[in-house]
């Protein structure tokens, strides 16, 4: 079942036309099925983050449409959009974006607080997620007292509390070392495999992308190609690298 569908998204910065304008997205059409684990890759400036922002309703497309769970989010505005985001979508950011004044647990339940869920429900949810991501021992600590990996797992838990239809992740491993990156990507795998949640992540980290089931490459604001995982993660990693080489980005010398 298709959970997210976009049609011909165009995003122009700096006025609709004219000399100063930049076309960040140029006719992107994409569809993601329920329970899929998709990565969007591309060189710097290719429009990855713009695409993610448009898909998640943080930014409005200049033209085209985005629908999630059958709802047209490109037509929603203001508070309706905010409500939709917190009920249907989850977010994980590169800088974790946790509130320093709240403990890990409080950060996790924040979307539930906004939804005015019952205390028992919040406690139950936090307990479950804490165990799932192995952060139950640090739940009462403040963000500046825990490691980056733990902060990101807290952020992943926060993205999941309201049982979203889809989780968006913007360079979730960008601020982490390789070991923490692996832990986070395993978390995403768990989300997809155990909870059946759809995950869409934007990354330029080949290693992170290799955990996904499908990688979509974009270049100059357009979808260039996509590949689907068939064999092992190692094979998939190699084929992503090959693709990136074709795409014109520099490959890593390993």
């Amino acid at each position, binding site marked *: 079942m298709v959970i997210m569908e976009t049609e011909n998204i165009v995003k122009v910065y700096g006025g609709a036309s004219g000399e100063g304008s930049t076309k960040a997205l140029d006719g992107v059409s994409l569809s993601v099925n329920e329970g899929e684990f998709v990565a969007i890759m591309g060189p710097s400036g290719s429009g990855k983050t713009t695409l993610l922002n448009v898909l998640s309703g*943080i930014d409005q497309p200049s033209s085209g449409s985005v629908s999630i769970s059958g709802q047209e989010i490109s037509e929603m505005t*203001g*508070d309706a959009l*905010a*409500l*939709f*985001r*917190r*009920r249907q*979508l989850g*977010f994980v*950011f590169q800088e974790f*974006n946790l*509130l*320093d*004044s*709240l403990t890990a647990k*409080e950060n996790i*339940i*924040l*979307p539930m*607080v*906004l939804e*005015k869920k019952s*205390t028992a429900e*919040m*406690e139950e949810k936090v307990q479950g997620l804490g165990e799932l991501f192995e952060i139950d021992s640090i739940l009462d600590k403040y963000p500046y007292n825990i490691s980056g990996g733990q902060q990101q797992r807290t952020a992943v838990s*926060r*993205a999941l509390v309201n049982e979203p239809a889809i989780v968006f992740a913007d360079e979730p491993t960008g601020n982490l070392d390789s070991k923490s990156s692996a832990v986070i990507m395993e978390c995403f795998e768990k989300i997809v495999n155990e909870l059946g949640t759809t995950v869409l992540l934007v990354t330029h980290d080949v290693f992170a992308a290799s955990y996904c089931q499908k990688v979509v490459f974009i270049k100059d604001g357009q979808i260039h190609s996509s590949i689907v995982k068939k064999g092992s993660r190692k094979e998939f990693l190699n084929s992503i690298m090959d693709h990136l080489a074709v795409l014109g980005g520099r490959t890593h010398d390993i």
Partner: protein
Amino acid sequence: MTFNQVVWKMAKADYKKYIFYFLCNSFAVMFFFMFSTVYFNSRIEQAKKLEGIQDALSIPGAALIIFTIFFISYAHNVFMKKRRSEFGLFLSLGMSPRDISKLLVIENGIIGMASILSGLLAGAVFSRLSFMLLMSSINLQDIPFHLSGKMFLYSIGAFLAVFLLAVGKSLIFTLRSSMILVMKSNRFAETIKMRSPLLGAFGLLLMVGSILTLYFTYEESSGAFLPLWTMAMFLGLYIAFSQASSFLIRLAKKFPGYYFHRLLFLSSLEYKFKQMTSIIMLVAVMIMITIFYSTLLLTFYKASEKDAVKNNPFDVAYYQIETKNNLSEAELNKILQTKDQLEIPIFYYLEKQILAGNGYHSYNFMSLRNFNELTKQEKSLENQEFLFFLNSEPEYAHTEFSETFRISMGNDEVTFEMKDYVVERRINLLPNSYEFVVVNDEVFDKMTNSLDGHVLTLNLLNVEDWKNSEGAVGELVKKFEAMNQAAPPANFSDLPYIEEELFRVASKVADFHLNKTTSGIMFYVTTFLSILFFMGTFILLYLNLFSEVDTEKAKYKNLYKIGMTSKEVKKNVTREIMTIFFVPTVIGTLLAFIYLVILSTDVGGIMNNPDILMHFLLIAGIYLAIQLGSYFYARKKMLIQLLG
């Protein structure tokens, strides 16, 4: 591009930070200058000496200075906090701490100079304006606005002293601290190191204890311990305050159902309160002083007529002897339109106390007939009885008098027994007119004949229209003065008063005018200071809210991303600003009220003084209304900043 150019470019890009700092310092200079235009105003200086309003002015003056010290160092800290992370960067690029210090001195030097100039200018303009406004509103024409060198000197001096201290502290910090500390200083939240509910409870106890002690001892000690207990109360308030937010939030956490639903509000409040304890405390104290003083002074001002009437039961009163203040009835009538007149001979007698070593005891004897006439009573006395008459309002009467006294008349030792005790205000405030010993007429005559004392005739007059008697009373005073100077000295060496004092004229109308001018000036000064204080507190709160607006913006941006609606942002911001604006207001108002209640114990309690209560409600109401206005303003500004 030289390094200096880089620094200059960074400064230009960040001009808002400098403007902000400059404005705060300008305000500080303006405060000092506006206060000094009042404090050093020649007419008010004159009044300070004559009418004893020195104390009334020095307390708010001290408060203003403390406030400004805090204000300047706070503005400086906000400025430096942002600046320091840049300094860290400069240091890591190889700039020496000496260079940084030089930069700091130059920056602050320029801002300090500019602040002095603009502050003085703005201060002069605003003071002139408020002089005009207030003078016409309280109908006081005799305080002219003027500027003097002293005003400039003191305000520049006071500002520079505080400013240099703050800059000096930062210089030492910059020179001494490590690079990493400088770089990260922006990110360290100031936290309270000592946190314990026990300490908080102690603070609360200290505060409540001080207030209660003050309440129960104020009347007896006639306010001697007021400063001490007030200090203790403030200390207690501060301790309780610094612990209160953590304590309350810890308490709230015990009830997750309550806590979770106010998670954002409570947690950010805890974070903010930690940094703001001293500011909120300061603002609360300023509000307390403002409301308390304004209420008191408004009461005094309104009471000028009432006090004049109360303190002067007769329109005109004076002592008279053969050579002093002695006018014939015809002459007197020519000057004053006398309605009725009482002449009461008072016999002043000083007796050496044999039993009590070399002590003396003085008596003011009055005859029973005169007493009955004066107080419109029908008392009677036997020969060895006396009646003690205290010329005072009952609530101020604190004099003890022995039940008997002995006096030697001729060869006899006569012992008198007290029959009665009367406390009433019947005579104007004149020297030597507080305690009287009333004896029957026969004894009185015998005393005047056989004892070596002085008879002073107390003249008590009522005129046709006292409010219009100012000119006539003035003429009478002049006439008396001329006459008294021409006459030989009265030679009353045993009376503890100088002649001019003893023979002065106590009139209702002169008292009324004096009261009105004195309390008018005081009321003016207080209103003036209240406005300054209000502006100051508002700027302080505003400064505090907006100094971290960038962090707040980032926070709400994140929250928006995870789905917080603008309605929820509004609600949250409203709660926070409301707390910051109204917690100090409520505490300050409450403290002002408590202090008014305490002070009223001296005049029979607040319930017997409905005018104090009314004035308090009026002033507190006005304050609250203005605070409400400024709260809405700050909220609107904040929401525009956060929601765009």
